[in-house]
């Protein structure tokens, strides 16, 4: 599957174009650096604060992966459980939906009370915010096994565990990876929220400190670093996905 050159270059052209427009807008309308700094100012800030940005970004990345890892383990476990039993599905669904509806920012103060300021609140915020889509998608993948496929397995005398192992899990993999793409960005957001409120390190914390100093270019520099890292994380998940579940993308639709 090779895309035409124009399609391969499009992301770069559009990104560069976006920054050029931004720069031109700032210069044309003489927007103050205090309101919306031009990209050139932001890149200067990025250079000036290169080391703090790198160090804190590394920390944020690490915390995000930790939270994401926990949420994969829990999300898979709960998702498999919920998806394989109608009773659990019916019973746990309202609980999970209710839990998911709580804005996670509201949970951070409780985490601070429990664990104090440090690395735990960001990791846990990343976890609680990102495990729900994994649970829901894995459960959906399992619960929507076609009755015909189930018949094929049952006619061979397969146990529930066999059906789960040979059909349920492979079948929910595309759902699982779809969820991972959502979950990784959520985990990342959760982590930054946690850092802003309850950490002495990380990009989130850097933003809190920069805003206390009214250092707007630094805030924007941090935001751009966040965006770059976010894209990077999604690309990694994408790559893993396309290696493991190519069979699910056989239609040309949207391709």
């Amino acid at each position: 599957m090779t895309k035409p050159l124009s399609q391969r270059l499009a992301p770069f052209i559009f990104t560069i174009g976006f920054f050029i427009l931004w720069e031109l807008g700032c210069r044309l309308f003489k927007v103050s650096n205090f309101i919306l700094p031009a990209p050139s100012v932001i890149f200067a800030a990025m250079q000036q604060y290169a080391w703090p940005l790198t160090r804190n970004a590394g920390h944020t990345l690490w915390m995000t992966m930790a939270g994401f890892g926990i949420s994969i383990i829990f999300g898979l476990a709960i998702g498999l459980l919920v998806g394989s039993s109608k009773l659990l599905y019916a019973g746990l669904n309202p609980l999970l939906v209710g839990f998911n509806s709580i804005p996670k920012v509201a949970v951070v103060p409780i985490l601070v009370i429990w664990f104090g300021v440090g690395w735990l609140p960001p990791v846990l915020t990343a976890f609680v915010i990102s495990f729900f889509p994994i649970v829901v998608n894995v459960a959906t993948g399992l619960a929507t096994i076609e009755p015909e496929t189930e018949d094929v397995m049952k006619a061979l005398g397969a146990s529930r565990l066999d059906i789960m192992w040979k059909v349920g899990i492979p079948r929910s993999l595309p759902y699982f990876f779809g969820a991972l793409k959502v979950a990784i960005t959520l985990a990342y957001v959760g982590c930054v929220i946690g850092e802003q409120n309850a950490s002495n390190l990380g990009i989130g914390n850097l933003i809190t400190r920069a805003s206390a100093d009214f250092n707007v270019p630094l805030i924007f520099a941090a935001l751009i670093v966040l965006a770059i890292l976010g894209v990077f994380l999604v690309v990694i998940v994408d790559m893993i996905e396309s290696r493991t579940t190519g069979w699910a993308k056989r239609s040309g639709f949207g391709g």
Partner: protein
Amino acid sequence: MAFIEIENVTHTYGGQAGASATLAVEGLSIKVNEGEFAAVVGPSGCGKSTLMKLATGLQFPQEGSVAVDGRKVDRPVKIAGMAFQNPVMLPWRTVLENIMLPLEIVQPHRSLLREKKAEYVEKAEQLLATVGLKGLGQKFPWQLSGGMQQRASLCRSLIHDPKLLMLDEPFGALDAFTREELWCVIRDLHALKKFTVVLVTHDLREAVFLGDRIFCMSARPGRIIAEREVTFPRPRDLEITYTPTFADVVHELRSQIKSARDPQALDPQALDPQAAGAAA
């Protein structure tokens, strides 16, 4: 005692009563002896697939009893190989892996699979070759045509040497020549392995050529309205399908099915607007 004994069975889909309930079969009785080749014919929607599911324990009847191999069927029977009306392949497995699925589940193959992997792969590939899919084992099922998938699903039903073979319109999507080739494949396998076969088909020639006993079902709710033994000696040659006696049997069955359809038979006049206008 017969190998398959279905007695006075009534089965409803979608709950016992209520608007969504469908009475699929009613007062259905069938007896198939061990080693026999039974063919089931009947109008579309009369409950043939339902009969297959009842016999293998994928559905349980509301009334009546089902027994296979001397045991009451109260869970999926383990001695059957089944080819469903749809091929139903697992899209993440190659054709070969799909065909070998039963070996991963049915004992004793399940425990032997690891040890004798090469042997089993060899067997699966041979089976593929007999149905004309030689060398396509590494493809994914969605890369095959509908008829090719059907043939692969036939292989899957045979791979674990089942005592009972249940085939639900396995040759439906095939051209006449491939179909006749596969008739001969099934005929030879049956002669060799002596398993019991239940074959659902819409093709009367197929039923008469392959079957020892033919069951005609009525329109829904399905029951058996005629049972006919076919006594052509075995091994049968494809040539017999062109003899007059063969044609007579097909003819007789045809008229039986025609009368079975009658309650809801298509009225040719309903398709003719002029005739309808004249009647009005």
